[in-house]
């Protein structure tokens, strides 16, 4: 029982870390970044590449790969999305197409399995309430908390962050104040992509680099964002915990194969019953008015 509580919490915090980048981008630019999973994998793979093929110092590899992935995010926006901004369906096609293309390309290169493993930041584990947790997982939790705090401070107290919030809440007013939607959206893509890489680099040491994760991550962050409500940090936390725990519970009592079903079904359920998510404010999600 204690074990489940601990693992559930750990799992949920991992989800929080993953979901922050996606929700940030969606909340600010209004574009669902379907390429998020691909960016997550890219970040991890780049770090592996720098570490193993180029022999760079581990923290340096991480830093560079996060930066590059962030840049890729900016390129996706500037190069592609910019031209179809405002046509929501084309935006979806672009991010979805790029994400799928990237993931399938990785799969075709053979980027999966035993060859690709990232070492944990710190080896070893400690015992907590009678359960062993490795330091890596603790670091992930710590990272998640730190990032959430940073995010909160950023959006509430810095100029760029307030601009982000302004865009998210009331685009026209923000425009009137001289906040450029294009640069803000572009920045949100870059930051979101960078955060995806951070999550990828942090979480991947727990297992092997696997392209499947790319699609699974996308679905999970979609679920967290939608169920929690995109504008609400509280929503992200709550939804992450809901899914974090449900995954553990379902895997233990039913079978691991049912976890994706639970996640997917909850997405559909929430979109049917309360489309703005548990804590989101409904912003014209329905066609009616």
């Amino acid at each position, binding site marked *: 029982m204690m074990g489940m509580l601990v693992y559930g919490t750990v799992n949920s915090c991992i989800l929080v870390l993953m979901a922050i980048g996606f929700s940030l981008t969606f909340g600010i630019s209004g574009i*669902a970044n379907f390429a998020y999973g691909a960016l997550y994998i890219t970040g991890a793979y780049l770090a592996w590449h720098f570490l193993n093929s180029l022999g760079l110092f581990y923290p340096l590899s991480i830093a560079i790969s996060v930066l590059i992935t962030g840049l890729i995010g900016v390129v996706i926006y500037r190069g*592609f999305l910019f*031209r*179809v901004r405002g046509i*929501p*369906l*084309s*935006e*979806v*096609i*672009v991010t*979805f*197409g*790029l994400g*799928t*293309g990237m993931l*399938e*390309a990785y*799969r*075709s290169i053979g980027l999966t399995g035993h060859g690709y493993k990232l070492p944990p930041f710190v080896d070893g584990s400690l015992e907590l309430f009678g359960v062993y947790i490795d330091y890596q997982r603790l670091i992930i939790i710590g990272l998640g908390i730190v990032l959430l705090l940073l995010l909160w401070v950023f959006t509430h107290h810095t100029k760029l962050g307030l601009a982000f919030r302004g865009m998210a809440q009331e685009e026209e007013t923000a425009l009137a104040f001289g906040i450029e939607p294009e640069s803000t959206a572009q920045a949100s893509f870059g930051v979101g992509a960078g955060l995806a890489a951070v999550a990828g680099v942090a979480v991947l040491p727990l297992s092997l680099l696997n392209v499947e994760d790319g699609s699974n991550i996308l*679905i999970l962050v*979609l679920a967290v964002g*939608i169920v929690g409500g995109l504008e609400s940090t509280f929503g992200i936390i709550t939804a992450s915990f809901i899914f974090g725990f449900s995954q553990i519970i379902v895997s233990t009592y039913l*079978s691991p*194969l*049912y976890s*994706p*079903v639970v996640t*997917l*079904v909850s*997405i*559909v359920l929430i*979109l*049917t019953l309360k*489309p703005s998510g548990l804590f989101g404010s409904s912003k*014209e*999600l*329905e*066609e*009616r*008015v």
Partner: protein
Amino acid sequence: MVWNLDKSAESVKYRKERLDRGIKVRSDSIYSLTSYREALYLILPRALTVVGILVLPLVLDEYWTRVLVITCVIAVLALSWDFIASAGMFSLGQGLFFGIGGYSAGVLNHYLGMPPVVTIPIATGLGGLLSGILLLPVLRLRGVYFAMVTFVLPLIFRALIEATGAFQGLEGLSGLSPLPNLQVAVYVIIGGMFVCFFGFRRLMDSDYGLILKAMLDNDRAVMAGGINIYWYKAQALFLGAAAAAFAGAFMTHYYRFVGISAFALDNSVLPVAAAVVGGPGGFAGALLGAFILVPLCESLRNIGSWRIVFYSFSMVIFVVTVPEGIFHYIARKYHQYEKWVEME
């Protein structure tokens, strides 16, 4: 686009002007055709295409006939996508309809022993019905969210089948009844494709299509006019899904197998890519896109798993550079000519 052709102080600006060709203007209304030339202008492209496709299986070798079959299947899926999109719904999950149709046919054949002649029609109707029911609750959602649900649903089915092991789980149903022979198969799918194409076009030209187009422009005004837009959307969904289910059922018997691959990403992405590249709206683009992308893809040797990469990236490039799609681009060139006009 404005060009400054003269760098001197009094530079003249030019802009592009597009005008309908004379023959288009004259032949626009069917009552005003006055010459064979005008009639040909209208009929020739269409007749050539239809006859051409009908004749293809007779001249191609076996390998390319098989490619033609796949092309037509993708074309049906693309047509289905285009029709659903004409009702304002953006589907990233044709794989859902395809899979439901495929499994319906497979189950009917495997457990109840019905022959393809029976399973395919039933699977078509069943596929349309089930898909419509599944998506009914989310008809009201804005584009992106509807797309998300359609994206997620096939994955749910795949996960469910894997988890519960239903319908032979991961192994899938194999050893199913085949279609009589390749020639019959290819003409069945070509027939299905043309039925969809001309059927959807006919629908869009009627008052039904009028309402769909109006819904795209201003759905509140349509509702104020006493029309239940959700019912129309549901109908469009049913018809589109039925078409895709037909493709799924056909494939089940063509390969004599159905498994979770029916719900795979391929079947959701490829049709969208074909429709986007060919040109969304009007259905001709969907056909063209399929007939360009699939043979192109097949002709690249050892494509294997790069297939989806190819389709995805083509889709992205086209939606960004030629959003109207190849067909509409060509049609525009056919119907209009451009000239540079001095700007006042």
